[in-house]
């Protein structure tokens, strides 16, 4: 009897303890919850709401316009141009910087003494102020006094007006984007490479994978799967978010040839102050991010795990 009473007592005390622990947890999490509501959830809700209005900063009144903003977006040539340019930029920067990042990581992995030095060098752009380095690139790309065209003219090639011509500006910006992100991807791949157990290579060797290429496709590539997926997602998201170099160097020009998504949103919302219309654009931008994340989860679910 007494043991039953004791058990009940213990259970009661445990329940009481659990309740007080739950209360403490709420208190500890409260600041984070409040700020999360204030600076993330409410603003997102507000953006979706504003996307259905014709709100303009400076005018007191606004009205609901339903899907008018979105209908307008479909025919907005600037916006369509901007989506296209962002896609082209992403389609260049993401794959090239991933492949180069992996290549550099594999080369560095096999390197002996100079390993630390090369890692530092390739990582340097990540630690540099991109706005500052963008102005350096502007000098390098300068059509008349820039070193790049000076170099080309030594070889007898007439250099293009890199950032100043509408048919080259996007590629020039892509070069800067690649320069900036190779090191970041390299570091992520290096971390993935060190996590691969050495024994797997020995086993592959026993199994007859003699050449470096065989070992790469038999061990390295499949084992790097999760890292690669992560690098792919983050590279695409970062490329979609390109803004700094565009704002610094081209202002979307010439002739909107380098108009990209975030720059268009910035112009509409913060320069022309058409908040409602810019909100609709922001919703499209958010939708792109959501789709990217969903794709990542789908791939993650389906992928065969080797570990």
């Amino acid at each position: 009897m007494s043991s039953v009473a004791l058990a009940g007592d213990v259970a009661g005390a445990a329940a009481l303890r659990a309740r007080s622990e739950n209360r403490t947890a709420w208190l500890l999490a409260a600041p984070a919850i409040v700020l999360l509501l204030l600076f993330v959830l409410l603003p997102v809700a507000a953006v979706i709401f504003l996307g259905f209005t014709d709100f303009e900063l400076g005018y007191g009144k606004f009205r609901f316009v339903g899907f008018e903003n979105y209908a307008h977006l479909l025919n907005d040539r600037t916006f369509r141009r901007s989506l296209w340019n962002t896609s082209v930029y992403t389609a260049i920067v993401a794959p090239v910087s991933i492949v180069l990042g992996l290549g550099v990581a594999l080369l560095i992995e096999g390197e002996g003494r100079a390993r630390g030095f090369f890692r530092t060098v390739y990582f340097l752009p990540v630690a540099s102020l991109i706005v500052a380095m963008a102005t350096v690139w502007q000098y390098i790309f300068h059509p008349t006094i820039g070193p790049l065209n000076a170099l080309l003219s030594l070889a007898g090639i007439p250099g293009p007006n890199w950032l100043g011509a509408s048919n080259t500006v996007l590629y020039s910006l892509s070069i800067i984007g690649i320069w900036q992100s190779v090191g970041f991807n390299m570091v992520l791949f290096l971390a993935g490479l060190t996590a691969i157990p050495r024994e797997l290579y020995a086993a592959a060797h026993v199994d007859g994978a003699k050449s470096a290429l065989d070992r790469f496709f038999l061990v390295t590539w499949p084992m790097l799967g999760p890292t690669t997926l992560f690098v792919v997602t983050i590279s695409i998201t970062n490329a979609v978010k390109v803004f700094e170099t565009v704002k610094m160097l081209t202002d979307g020009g010439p002739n909107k040839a380098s108009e990209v998504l975030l720059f268009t949103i910035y112009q509409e919302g913060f320069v022309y102050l058409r908040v409602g219309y810019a909100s609709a654009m922001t919703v499209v931008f958010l939708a792109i991010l959501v789709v990217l994340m969903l794709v990542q989860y789908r791939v993650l679910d389906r992928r065969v795990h080797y570990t």
Partner: protein
Amino acid sequence: MNSIPVGRIIRFALLSLGALMILAPYIFMISTAGKTQSDIFTSSLALIPQHFYFAENFAKALAKVPMATLLWNGVVVCGMIFFFQVVVAIPCAYAMAKLKFRAARLMMVLVMLGLLVPIHATALPLYVAFDGMSLLNSYTSLVAPFTISVFAIFMFLQFFRAMPDDLLHAARLDGMSELGIVARVIVPNAWPAVTAFAIFSVVAHWNDLYWPLIVVSKQAYATPPLGLMYFRAAEAGDDYGALMAATLIITVPLVAAFLLAQKRFVEGITMTGLKG
């Protein structure tokens, strides 16, 4: 066995070539910062300036750009952001990882959603709100939206989950309050995660142009990227010597920090990166 040195040489050559391309902008930045205007126009490929003009270019940059203000603003803004992020995120992550917290799952959903939303998506309503409260051009508007970092919560959560429970039981038996445990047991033990996050946070906000550009229109509150943009727009036209000098001054602090604490930097980026 003859092929090994050849392979090694090719590998070294490839890496060196790539390294040269990565370093080229830095080399030209330093070299151009020491050139006269006429030097820049006539010999862009010569790396050693004909007349050493470093002092003059730096003087010009320092006279036109309020460098001390910019760097100070950068330090204040990044410092405050980091401070609030950690103070807010650590207790929350602790509650989610180690306490019987009924809302833990809901919080996890919120955190995952939050990870998806960059400042670019929330900027419009936040700008309207700050404008309505006349808070534009202030440290408050620069710092406030970043006081919550779901990323910090996520990262600390992973870290705390791996911490042994015995440590906490012992502290509780000693009669410590939960807040005391967070301050005296959790934080000291979370130091590696805190430094890793510090590097991630400072690099991100030191570099950010988007949000400062939106809420700041006065030189007095400009952060380094914004200040450099003003300088370029107002003065520099084709005066690349002074521009490169200004660029150099503004790039040096973070690069120096990186070179000094390189291992931590790489750790910080991979730790935060791989778990993001």
